[in-house]
């Protein structure tokens, strides 16, 4: 089982500690995405797995073997770099063959491997070209090809799509996902883009400030963020977070009474942050909804949906609603309705999610 295991991994540069004890198990064939804002330590963590950064403390196991002191080339991992690092003086075939030649794979075997991989990636017609003569998407594929031909135990991706334009990024994202389904190689993928994380990951690891905030499937993280950071990081537009207090029956934000599901166990009066995802509100009242009066600021049509920018008290809030092909009914919106089951409650000080009911 070619899993990756990190236990208490710490990275220091001199006296500055940038990764504070990461614990993570990546299962065989799993696709794990490390996501977080820049400087959160996700790339450093990936580079420690690759062997490009020394591990200051802790243990890294790949396929059950301790790798801390093993050179990158002997870890049997392959990496796709943000800038691809394609050798500009070599053509596509030679770029893919580079690692195989260094490892002295027999020539005919190299040729077969290259042509098979090129076929998978749709690069067969481009094998003689230099990287400079390729489009962004093709370069991206060559970079992946160079990793694939080695048949490594683990793929590492360091923000591989961030150099592509939005359209190509969507397309290549799907290709990476398909490729993973096909090859089934354990993958660790670093990105700052939460959409990539949501779409690609079996499990997402949200990192912040050198620590793991939460690990879980995309839907777990989306539905049950453990704190305001995760809540704000995943989802687009991000969750609305408003200051309020718990009451005997629910919660209060300014003048609005909000129904929540679950009892508060006598925590009434506690300062909390109330989180509501933009897409969870409705314009019509429902069975278990509360009213939030708003001042509508701006309507941004996106086509089938529209973003409503509004103000509630001192808070700027944003909601997403369906247009049904028409914006006219949105111009006069003065209130939205919040389903009780969708309301998230976080502690005002720690930002941690409060479990409701129980």
């Amino acid at each position, binding site marked *: 089982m070619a899993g990756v295991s990190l236990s208490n991994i710490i990275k220091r540069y001199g006296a500055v500690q940038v990764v504070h004890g990461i614990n993570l198990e990546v299962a*065989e064939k799993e696709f794990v995405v490390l996501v977080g804002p820049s400087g959160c330590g996700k790339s450093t963590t990936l580079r420690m797995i690759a062997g490009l950064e020394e591990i200051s403390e802790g*243990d890294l196991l790949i396929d059950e073997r301790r790798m801390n002191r093993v050179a990158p080339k002997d870890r049997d991992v392959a990496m796709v770099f943000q800038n691809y690092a394609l050798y500009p003086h070599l053509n596509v075939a030679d770029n893919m063959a580079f690692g195989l030649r260094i490892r002295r794979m027999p020539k005919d075997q190299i040729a077969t491997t290259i042509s098979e991989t090129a076929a998978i990636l749709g690069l067969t017609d481009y094998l003689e070209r230099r990287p400079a003569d390729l489009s962004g998407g093709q370069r991206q594929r060559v970079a992946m090809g160079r990793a694939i031909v080695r048949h490594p135990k683990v793929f590492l991706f360091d923000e591989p799509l961030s150099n592509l334009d939005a359209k190509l990024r969507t397309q290549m994202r799907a290709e990476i996902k398909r490729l993973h389904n096909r090859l089934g190689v354990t993958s660790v993928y670093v990105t700052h883009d939460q959409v990539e994380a949501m779409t690609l990951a079996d499990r997402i690891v949200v990192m912040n400030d050198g620590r793991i905030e939460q690990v879980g*499937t995309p839907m777990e993280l989306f*539905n049950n963020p453990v704190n305001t950071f995760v809540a704000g990081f995943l989802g687009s537009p991000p969750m609305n977070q408003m200051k309020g207090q718990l009451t005997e029956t629910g919660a209060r934000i300014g003048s609005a009474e909000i129904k929540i599901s*679950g009892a508060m166990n006598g925590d009434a009066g506690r300062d909390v942050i109330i989180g509501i995802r933009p897409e969870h509100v409705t314009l019509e009242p429902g069975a278990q909804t509360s009213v939030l009066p708003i001042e509508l600021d701006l309507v941004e049509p996106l086509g089938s949906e529209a973003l409503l920018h509004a103000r509630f008290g001192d808070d700027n809030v944003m909601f997403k609603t369906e247009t049904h092909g028409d914006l006219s009914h949105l111009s006069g919106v003065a209130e939205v309705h919040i389903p009780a089951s969708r309301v998230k409650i976080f502690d005002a000080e720690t930002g941690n999610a409060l479990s*409701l009911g129980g």
Partner: protein
Amino acid sequence: MVEEHSTATQSIQDNVLQAREAAPLHSDGKMVRLLDHFKREWQLYVMLAPTIIWFLVFLYKPMYGLQIAFKDYSIFRGVAGSPWVGWEHFETLFSNDQFLRAIGNTIKISALNLIFGFPAPIILALMFNEILNARFKKTAQTIVYLPHFISSVIIAGIVITAFAPTGGIVNVILGWFGIDSIYFLTRPEWFRPIFVGTGIWQEAGFGSIVFLAAIAGVNPSLYESAVVDGANRWQMMWKITIPSIMPTILIMLIIRIGNIMEVSFELVILLYQPATYSTADVVNTWVYRQGLQSGQYDLAAAAGLFNAVVAFVLVMTANTLSRRYSRTSLW
């Protein structure tokens, strides 16, 4: 009230241990990691070693040999075995008229180089910038860069031939105006003009490359907005180009000042003769004659040391200035 989600990854979930209990197996010590580093990177040190050894043998060992400036050096006793004499050589030097004259000449030649030689490549670069015809510009540049690649022996040969008293082109031209032939290279008053002029002829073109690059780095929209504002080329040169390349000009000026003690003595040796020593002899040529031709190694080494220390102080000062007045330092 965690909501239930049956996702495709549920099975993977079951296999995975959630965040492990904190218990590092063991951590590697500093020595172990240092050993690992050398085990992994020894090749880098192998690559570096020849260069470092070369510097030690050919550049640092002579610095050790500089101690003869304070010794009564004899070839037989060697550098280490010769007896110390303290500042004796320096006292001799500073009471030696020829040496003092050489310092004076060094500074005078450098000053002339600075006054006439420094602006030349800047003016040339500004003029090249005004040339629209790319082909003419390229050809002219190719030609004016060329003398930089010609050896000083040849340069001196050309100068000697051109300034020859009989048949040399300079005297031929003077003859057209009825001026009597001058044996330029034996006349002390002519040495410095010829030397500095030769330097400009040889290096002005090549020196303009740096300024041309600086000019090329000026944001073109500055010129476009100046055109819209009705400026002419002359005004653009003064109001845009020159202010924009000022940092480069300053840095090059500072480098020049830092190198005041470095007159290209190779060319001096090739052009001067005893008759012109009074204006031509610089510190390094004096060192060459005293040391390598007359064998007074210790005295000559002392003169060389003096020159090197002054040059070092000048360069360091220059770099500090450059760091202070522009964002770039020289290294």
